[in-house]
């Protein structure tokens, strides 16, 4: 590598670049396998830009050019323009509302000529940069609640706008930035509380609500009983326990049903329930009875996508059926298999072995990014690196978990592999900014 232009190549983490290229190659292969029909003229369609795999290839080329530009950019530029970028991102998100095109069930896309442009997707870059910028300010003391709230606001504002564009999945991605905040000193209690609430919500889905209330009460009584000796020493303990019990029962008896009835849409309720494998309770069904059903192209019952996806992956066996012999993905049994369900192609075509190899590549990439983050001298670079790791982690984990039936179906792409220009470019930019910052890790950015 030393023969290359030292100005660009110096300090670049080639392992990440290598992983990037491998993943893009896997992605192109998978898209090819999912969309190729017997007898298609491969080379011809590749050149005339008709097929998905050729489009994806051209996006890769555009991404590579962008990556080159990023590597040529001064690393200070990113920190300097972070706030302006954030503002630009928000403007784009707002512009979408009057200008979005009518593409199936989403209000987040602007059509620019032949390309669909999705601000909600690439806004992540600006949020990651801005959050890093805020956390790295010398005057920010992240142990203060005020700072924590400001950081949360930076995340939630674009998330809320994305949610308004009916892109629940992309909005949820912003939750991953809590990992960055955790690394920078967010009290563990908040994360523990967050996880507890999540666990409670899942439990609400699984148990009948009064049964669950009874279980919670019994737990409370047991905790009180085992700690009875400590109440004298710690006066606030008993009220705290009772407060937690009240909050839990409140969430479980009132907040969750309220959210299911009034905040979530009918199809979302269906998807959530189909993930835990239960029927929707009558009261929610009645609450959503009047809605026009948005089932996009997932026909039949809400569990259809996931069932077909599980069948496709499950039928792959140990070594898979081979690239073009995968019956489920090749003959369109899995909806959205080029985009959100692209993992099925890998799972069916290359089996358990292929799936584990792909998971392995991702985990190597994530651990590598964390390692890179920890070797940064500047808080900006470190926070940004954690931001990238968090976003990738959330995308990979939730996307694959959703295809294997472990998470509800929220439409988010698999980084570098799912078909989609905006997502490929977004992830490319995210990664190469990190590589650029890492190349200058000896510098302290403010």
């Amino acid at each position, binding site marked *: 590598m030393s023969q290359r232009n030292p100005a660009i190549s110096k300090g670049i983490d080639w392992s990440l670049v290598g992983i990037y290229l491998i993943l893009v190659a896997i992605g192109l292969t998978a898209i090819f396998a999912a969309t190729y029909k017997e007898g298609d003229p491969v080379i011809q369609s590749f050149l005339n830009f008709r097929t998905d795999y050729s489009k994806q290839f051209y996006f890769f080329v555009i991404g590579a050019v962008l990556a080159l530009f990023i590597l040529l950019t001064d690393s200070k530029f990113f920190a300097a323009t972070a706030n302006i970028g954030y503002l630009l991102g928000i403007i784009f998100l707002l512009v979408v509302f009057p200008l979005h095109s009518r593409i199936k069930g989403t209000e987040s896309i602007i059509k620019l000529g032949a390309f669909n442009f999705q601000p909600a997707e690439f806004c992540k870059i600006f949020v990651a940069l801005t959050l890093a910028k805020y956390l790295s300010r010398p005057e920010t003391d992240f142990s203060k609640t005020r700072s924590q709230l400001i950081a949360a606001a930076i995340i939630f504002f674009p998330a809320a706008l994305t949610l308004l564009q009916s892109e629940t999945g992309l909005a949820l991605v912003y939750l991953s930035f809590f990992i960055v905040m955790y690394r920078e000193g967010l009290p563990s209690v908040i994360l523990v509380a967050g996880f507890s609430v999540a666990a409670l919500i899942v439990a609400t889905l699984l148990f009948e609500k009064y049964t669950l209330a009874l279980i919670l009460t019994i737990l409370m009584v047991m905790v009180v009983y085992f700690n009875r000796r400590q109440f004298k020493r710690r006066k606030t303990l008993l009220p705290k326990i009772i407060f937690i019990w009240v909050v839990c029962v409140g969430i479980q008896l009132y907040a969750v049903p309220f959210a299911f009835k009034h905040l979530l849409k009918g199809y979302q309720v269906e998807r959530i329930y189909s993930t835990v494998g239960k029927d929707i309770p009558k009261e929610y069904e009645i609450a959503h009875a009047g809605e026009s059903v948005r089932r996009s192209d997932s026909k039949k019952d809400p569990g259809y996508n996931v069932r077909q996806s599980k*069948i496709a992956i499950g039928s*792959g066996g140990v070594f898979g059926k081979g690239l073009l012999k995968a019956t489920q993905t090749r*003959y369109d*049994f899995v909806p959205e298999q080029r985009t959100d369900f692209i993992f099925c192609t890998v799972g069916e075509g290359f089996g*358990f072995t292929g799936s584990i190899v792909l998971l392995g590549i991702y*985990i190597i990439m994530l651990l590598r990014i*964390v390692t890179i983050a*920890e070797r940064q001298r500047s808080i900006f670079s470190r926070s940004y690196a954690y931001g990238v790791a968090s976003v990738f982690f959330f995308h990979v*984990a939730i996307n694959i978990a959703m295809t294997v039936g472990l998470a509800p179906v929220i439409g988010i792409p698999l980084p570098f592999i799912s078909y989609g220009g905006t997502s490929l470019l977004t992830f490319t930019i995210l990664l190469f900014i990190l590589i650029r910052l890492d190349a200058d890790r000896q510098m302290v950015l403010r």
Partner: protein
Amino acid sequence: MPVFNQSRSRIIRLLFIVVFLVIAGQLFYLQIVSGKYRRMADENAILRKTIYPPRGLVFDRKKRAILNNTLTYDLMVTPSQAKGIDTAFFCRLMEIDTAEFRKRVVTAIIKNSSQKPSVFEASLSPQKFARIQENLWKFHNGFYLQERPIRSYPYNAGANIFGYLGEVDTNYLKKHAEEGYVSGDYAGMTGLEASYEKVLMGERGTQVLIKDNFNRIQGSYENGALDVEAVAGKNLYTSLDIDLQEYGEKLMSNKVGSIVAIDPKTGGIIAMVSSPTYNPGLLTGAERRKHFSELYIDARSPLLNRAVNASYSPGSTFKTLQALVGLQDGVITTKTTFSCSGAFYGCGSSKPMHCLDAGTYYLRTAITHSCNTYFANVMQRVINNPKFPNIDSSLRSWNNYMYAFGLGHKLGVDVPTEQSGNIPTPEFFNNPKRYGKGHWNFCTFRSVSIGQGEVNVTPLQVANEMAYIANKGWYIIPHIVDSIEGGDEFGLLEKYRKKNVPMEIPDSIFEAVHDGMQGVMEGGTGRGSKVEGITICGKTGTVENNAVIKGQLVKQPNHSFFCAFAPRENPKIAIMCVVENSGRYGGSYAAPITSLMIEKYINDTISAKRIAVEERMINTNLIPPLMMQEMRRMDSLKRNKETDNELKKELKIIKDTLQTEDNPTEGEIKSEKSKDSNLPFKGKGKRISSRDILDADRQRLLKNKNGLTRI
């Protein structure tokens, strides 16, 4: 910033790894532990299409195809994809109403689920086929046309020999569980189609196809590596002479009865006519069901194969066998004479048995002139033979002769529904319900000596008996199929390769009987049916019979019987004919018909002198009055539009009535007869049920029982 948070990087790494391990665990479960997803994937994407091979053809002795295949088309529906078509237009094309449309779709769903194709209408008529084919693109997702080869009958003859194909029902599927039939398949229900189903059906093939999300076929799976070629059904080569078969059916038109002709040297059946018959083409194709129910309720019972499935008292044709027994037992010689003063008084004057011509007879003339008294005396001597300790053992000895001659048991012909007939045994008479032990003697059943009363035979048995006499002491089990293309894989023909020599009887005894039978044609009861240039040995029979009508025994017109073989030296054909309720003698109808058949078979043409006889036979209408009455009753039923309900009832009954017999090839001799199945006037319990008057009446008609008295 504080460095102490660095430990959190480890927690974050741990979080990443744990989540990925959970996902890997789920992948391990889905892809390696659980086999169900692979199976579900196959169900999703793989279509196993059964390829039906064409059924085997049937050829006659001159290698002419007498049972062939032709193509028709079934309209298939896949209910889940038939939604959203222009139903009204579709119904107009199919000439049905929307209610019927819905009914058929629901039936299809029940049969094969809504994802799989089922038959919407089988064997489209040419007009419907043309209309549908032209417009099929409009219903392309839900409907398609499937080729189905159906049977065709180039000669329009032999319907009862070939039998017909029917859709298999649950009973059939249960019986043939291991043979790969599925609901909706067709299988042979009667006749050769049923007996040789195994070889005629061929081996089904499978084509493994890949389909997509919308059930559209995308090509073959793994380049057809898993496909199984269909193997065409094997052809059958029969001993039938289709010309003679057609000729026989022509001669028997407007008559009830049957003709069976056997090649005595091979046991091969040359012709097997059952009349009235039907056009076999009626039971293939689009209107199959309708025709079937029409034939089924037809008072003339055209679906009944009378040659094997009807039994009669043999009448005087039985005398040939009695002569063999008498000579072999030594109770008479060819020189023994008995005289008849007008009747047989051997059992006292109260129960005389009349004979035609008074006089003194020895064996040859007794056969020639069919003297009742002579054979009553012969059998009396056989039964009262002092060499036996009691009547049971002497009757048993007589039984053994009869079994040896092929009576009293199923012969094992390769056409199903064969009856065994009846030879009265000591047990039969000892039954307390009948006479009881010690309460019977020869005089009780003296009419058996001339082939009336308790003895029952099928036309096939009589023809076989002729072959036995013609061969002078052996026969081969009569059969239609001589050989199977590619070999007899299932051993179906083995029993037809063996000469049966049931007992050693010297040729001289047969010669004596032949003499008498030749005399029949030359100056006896069959003299009117002589054929110039062919030495025929024959025997007439005039069979008295009764029918049960409303519980009363009513005498019916006589059956006309004739059996023969020809030529006497080196016989080529053994034949029998019965014309039911013709009201005249054996020599009146059965003999001329038989002689015409013999002449046609041996000379290939009918001599000019006999054209008149031929025409008279063809044109005589001998449908029995009782049957005519029944037909008129059915017609009026039809006019009263009650037939609709009748048809439905009948169709339900069809299944259990026309089921093929469990084991048509059972050939063992049964000395023990079931207790009440042979009681007179009761009919066979198996065939008569209390279903409805109509059915029972017809059963009686078919089974009219034979009288107890003389010829």
